[in-house]
């Protein structure tokens, strides 16, 4: 049995909108094992992105806890949380979130600047990461000069640059056509399998999730309403289908 990568216990995140209190995440308890590929599914407003933000250390729970690699994120200082995001987590977003004024190489290099990686090593590391996602020829282009798929691949290269253990993807194919989406999903699976990274992906496309994830977690109104494991057989069948 693989060790626990993420454990959320009675996780709550409530937002106040004027007089009303909105429970975006409402008592979610879940465990993700290291090396697992998990899809968080649910309709709009189900709280899946909020859960992802809490795991990413971008947000703090109103109550409950989220423990990643035996560290309770709710107990970390702002500085430690930034350090956690820098070294433990890699994130990709629906809207890619690359910095428009920087080239792809510079975008990929940016987390290394924050991690104070030696200047002489950064260029090579960025090139390697871009080669891995097939963008070595585009490294001096700005994001606006690239297609959506290329931008998302660059975002993946950036997410991997500090060798995190956890890859969090928030609707990574949401802005892409199905063919490009498949490319991105294949990359996610490759990282999951070859690098042993734990992947948590938020999506509302059940078929996509079923094809790539080992486990589907369903959320509705901030609550966990279902947790299904996809059998290895079903996964390999979907891979075969995909290959044909």
């Amino acid at each position, binding site marked *: 049995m693989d060790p626990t990568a993420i454990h959320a216990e009675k996780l709550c995140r409530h937002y106040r909108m004027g007089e009303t209190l909105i429970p975006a995440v409402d008592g979610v308890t879940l465990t993700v094992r290291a090396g697992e590929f998990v899809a968080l599914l649910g309709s709009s407003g189900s709280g899946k992105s909020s859960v992802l*933000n809490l795991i*990413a250390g*971008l*947000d703090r729970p109103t109550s409950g806890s989220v423990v990643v690699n035996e560290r309770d994120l709710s107990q970390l200082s*702002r*500085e430690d949380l*930034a*350090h956690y*995001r*820098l*070294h433990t987590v890699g*994130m990709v*977003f629906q809207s890619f*979130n*690359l*910095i428009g*004024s*920087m080239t792809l190489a510079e975008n990929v290099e*940016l*987390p290394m*600047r*924050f*991690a*104070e990686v030696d*200047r002489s090593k950064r260029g090579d590391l960025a090139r390697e990461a871009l080669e891995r996602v097939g963008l070595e020829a585009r490294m001096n282009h700005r994001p606006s000069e690239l297609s959506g798929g290329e931008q998302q691949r660059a975002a993946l290269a*950036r*997410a991997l640059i*500090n060798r995190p253990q956890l890859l969090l993807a928030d609707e990574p194919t949401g802005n892409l056509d199905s063919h490009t989406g498949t490319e991105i999903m294949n990359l996610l699976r490759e990282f999951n399998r070859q690098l042993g990274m734990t992947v948590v992906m938020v999506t509302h496309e059940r078929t996509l999730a079923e094809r790539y994830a080992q486990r589907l977690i369903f959320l509705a109104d901030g609550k966990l309403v279902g947790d299904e494991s996809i059998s290895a057989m079903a996964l390999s069948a979907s891979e075969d289908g995909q290959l044909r």
Partner: protein
Amino acid sequence: MKLPDLTELAVRNLRESFLRNSLTTVGISVGVASLVAMLSLGIGLQQLASRRLMKSGLFDTVVVTSRRDLRNFNREEERNGPAPGESRILDEPTRQEIERLPNVVEAYPDIRFITELRYEDKPHLTTIAALPASAKSTDAFETMQGHFFSSDMAPEAILQKAFAEELLGKAPKPGLDETNVKELAAPLIGKELTMRYAQREAAQASTGDQSLSGAAYSVVSREQKLKIVGVADLDPESMRGPTRARVFLPLKLAESLHVMQPTDLREISRTASDQPVYSSVSVRVKNPSQTQTIENTIRKMGFNTFSILDASKSIQQFFKVLDVFLGIFGSLALAVAFIGIVNTLVMAILERRREIGIMKAIGASDGDIKKLFFAEAGAMGILGGMVGVALGWAIGQVINLGTNVYLKSQSFPPEHFWSVPWWLVAFALVFSFFVSLAAGLYPAGRAARLDPVQALRYE
């Protein structure tokens, strides 16, 4: 984040909104330029005033008199020092002692006497004073016709304008003094004067009576030929100490003549030799700021002193106040620039809200974001400071040039009104850097506190 990365990112961000950041930087430049311009004007004027005051010889000169000279009676000194009859004599050894004091440039006796001068066989009675070689640099002789004494022993004389008029038989015009010194000097320079004077001569100790040695000198009438070398354009009623005479001789020459001085008679009962006794000694100090110390030292030696230090103090105070006011006015523009920086950076936060969110999502700490905004503010400050100092300096040069062109047209000698000392340059750069950092304080804090989830949602 390391400093080189920080600088690189800051410069990149500044380049992104080039026009807005340039305008903000120009704002800082104008602020720094106005500060530099105002302060350098204040400093320049102060330096000009001290230069003129130094040249006047008023503020760096201490006049020393003996307490035995009852004309300089001063009750306070009387109470604190020895009685006049018991106090020291101002003679040559004392003069040398004073000259050896630290920060004293020179101490020279005030030789002044009234005697007869003959010019073209006509007698003229006037006051004659001796001048040390150092007097050449005082402003009193700046506009003089002819030249200063060729040596300290040269049998030469410099006339004051009024005396030159008298020699030429011209009546001084009442009211405005518009006499042209050039016209006066032309017929006089190179001509000869004959000075008749009473020489104090050491008598032969023929009587062998030691008790009379104090009075052992005689007074002999002598003549000395003098060549007129210059005519000074001085106000005869000028307050300047050594210039209150109408004819000047070189100091060493005057000393060698042993002209009978009033003090010689007063000290006749006491002096045990023919060594001269001076009525007063003028002490020139290296810097006017040391005048007070020197005065105190000489007072402790048992002499009376006089200097125009209080006037100099109030002038210094005036310039300090002027500097403060000019600094405040100069800083007003910098205060406007300060608001400009705050505005630019707050705008940048709004514009780059999402970017800040992305940076935080990929691991930037609050400190990284804060430092980035500080670096941007600091870069604008340094750049604005450098341009501002150059601009302030250029404004100074232009005003200096313009004023001197005007002065020249009014036939005044050129002056340096503007002074940008190196410390002002350093101060302006450091000041603009810190003002910019202070301006960045609020925006940087605000950017650092941004909630990454909110910032990422921002379109």
